[in-house]
């Protein structure tokens, strides 16, 4: 069974952390993953840096740009992760924009992920329709879970369609925004969380965008299986370096 599916069956709220691979330093990737697991993180999203991250706010953009300046490439990331399964057990997802995957070759990319022990992908600018028509078979061949986003503006009909194409979890974007721009949730978000929760979807939901601390994590996981922290963790890395991960995760849980 895919590690993501297995993890989602555990009776606990999932804490997922996103970071940009190659940031703050090119070779921090493996250490960061190991430290996150050691401190009780359930799932990790490894960001494959891109020059033009359309759905990201300034914090993730800046970390992505810095990672590219540090020399990060798709091949280097794969090389860094080559032996990751010798030390890390929790599910690992690569999150990145479509163009670098297209250049690597979508099938070659998926094959490499499977070899390394990557469990899933999140590709914000690969729409579910195109995936279903052109790429689903490849992902399935390599046992990869593809995770799709929904937002407060996504229609119920489309959510049902996304649920039918998904086989891991649904990434529930908390509000109409790019990453890192919200702090705290109001009534609008809570009613949206509740609406989705009441749809009884086949896939569990994990909420992302706007989760930055214990309070927002608890608020989000009242309605969903888990929550994802990205920009807040990257801010922590940029302020404290990669050696103080325990401090960050400890404050969430």
């Amino acid at each position: 069974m895919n590690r993501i599916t297995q993890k989602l069956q555990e009776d606990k709220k999932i804490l997922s952390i996103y970071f940009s691979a190659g940031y703050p330093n090119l070779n921090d990737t493996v250490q960061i993953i190991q430290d996150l697991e050691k401190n009780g993180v359930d799932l990790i999203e490894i960001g494959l840096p891109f020059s033009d991250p359309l759905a990201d706010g300034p914090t993730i953009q800046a970390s992505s740009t810095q990672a590219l300046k540090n020399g990060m490439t798709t091949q280097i990331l794969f090389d860094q992760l080559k032996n990751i399964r010798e030390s890390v057990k929790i599910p690992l997802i690569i999150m990145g924009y479509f163009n670098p995957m297209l250049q690597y070759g979508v099938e070659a990319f998926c094959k490499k992920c499977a070899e390394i022990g990557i469990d899933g992908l999140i590709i914000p600018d690969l729409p579910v329709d195109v995936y279903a028509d052109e790429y689903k078979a490849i992902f399935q061949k390599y046992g990869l879970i593809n995770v799709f986003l929904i937002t407060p503006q996504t229609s119920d009909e489309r959510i049902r369609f996304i649920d039918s194409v998904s086989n891991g979890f649904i990434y529930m974007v908390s509000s109409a925004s790019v990453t890192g721009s919200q702090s705290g949730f109001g009534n609008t978000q809570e009613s949206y969380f509740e609406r989705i929760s009441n749809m009884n979807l086949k896939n569990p939901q994990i909420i992302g965008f706007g989760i930055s601390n214990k309070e927002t994590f608890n608020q989000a996981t009242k309605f969903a299986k888990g929550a994802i922290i990205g920009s807040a963790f990257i801010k922590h890395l940029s302020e404290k370096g990669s050696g103080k991960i325990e401090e960050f995760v400890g404050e969430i849980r």
Partner: protein
Amino acid sequence: MNFNVNEKGYYGEFGGAYIPEMLYPNVEELRENYLKITSEPDFKAEFDQLLKDYVGRPSPLYFAKRLSEKYNTKIYLKREDLNHTGAHKVNNTIGQILVAKRLGKKRIIAETGAGQHGVATATVCALMGLECIVYMGEIDIARQAPNVARMKMLGAEVRPALSGSRTLKDATNEAIRDWINNPVDTHYIIGSAIGPHPYPDMVTRFQSVISEEIKWQLKEKEGRENPDYVVACIGGGSNAAGTYYHFLHEPEVGIIAVEAAGKGVDSGFSAATSKLGKVGVIHGCKTLLMQTPDGQITEPYSISAGLDYPGVGPMHAHLAQTGRGEFFSVTDDDAMNAGLQLTKLEGIIPAIESAHAFAVLDQKKFKPTDIVVISLSGRGDKDLDNYIDYFKL
């Protein structure tokens, strides 16, 4: 072969809508409605009336006698430079603001490179009384100061794009992020024939008035609707798309596209996408794209802010791939000299973007009997500082 968009939003393998889910409702709303709205009689009437009385259309098709003598062929200029606001861009902004109004949008955003599209957007927002925010690369703000001042005077807020190369590509990123953050009340007026479907087709349709007029104007002057060649400069490709549109399926009409070679195609400072690009995804569409082997989008370069874009509209990528379009690249130096030559021979100062199209006359030999229509997409007022610097005037 079909050179228009198909029902799935593709031109051959190019196009589509590669957008984050956050943009899906906005783009889908537009896709479902744009053809319906633009084919309604009251839309057409309002669009045509504004093009006539406000923009000043039809724009003249001018026989350039002295230029024709110099190159021993028959050259006509399609005078988009005479439009209100000084370029072809306003054809599209008029169309899109009328669509936005019918969709009930209250707030308009746009990206701009040279500032022509920003000015054209700010203009129609003033005309319709809508809030307007224009994203513009910090570098472009510096090199196109008069247009920045015009936008501000028209009531638009000009927000600098500070990321990446701080030019058109980054301004587009910022506009897309704004749209993600404002999904309900905002319409994004894309200025070029790029972006997710239906944008390339919608922009092309609004700009197609250029080739529609060329047909009847040429018929009046030469007794035939079809020239032997149509020539246009290409950045994203909106003036080119409009200039080619009604000739795409007329095989006797040669389609010539002129890209910015910058300091030379292989110099590392270029924007010649058809030569340097590979298939990729940028700003919501699959097209030819300048990028590293690793799929990172590279920084283009051109002296002309309007051509300084690492991709090209999907329609043009298809024209390049199929060979329907003949693609040339013109250096900064050749473009500047062509601009000065047009000024001296015809008394017309072209925008540096448009000047690129004229430099093709030194690269391709036309027959004396050929009729060549060149799109003079914009006037050079905004580029005076650049001309002065370059020629030490």
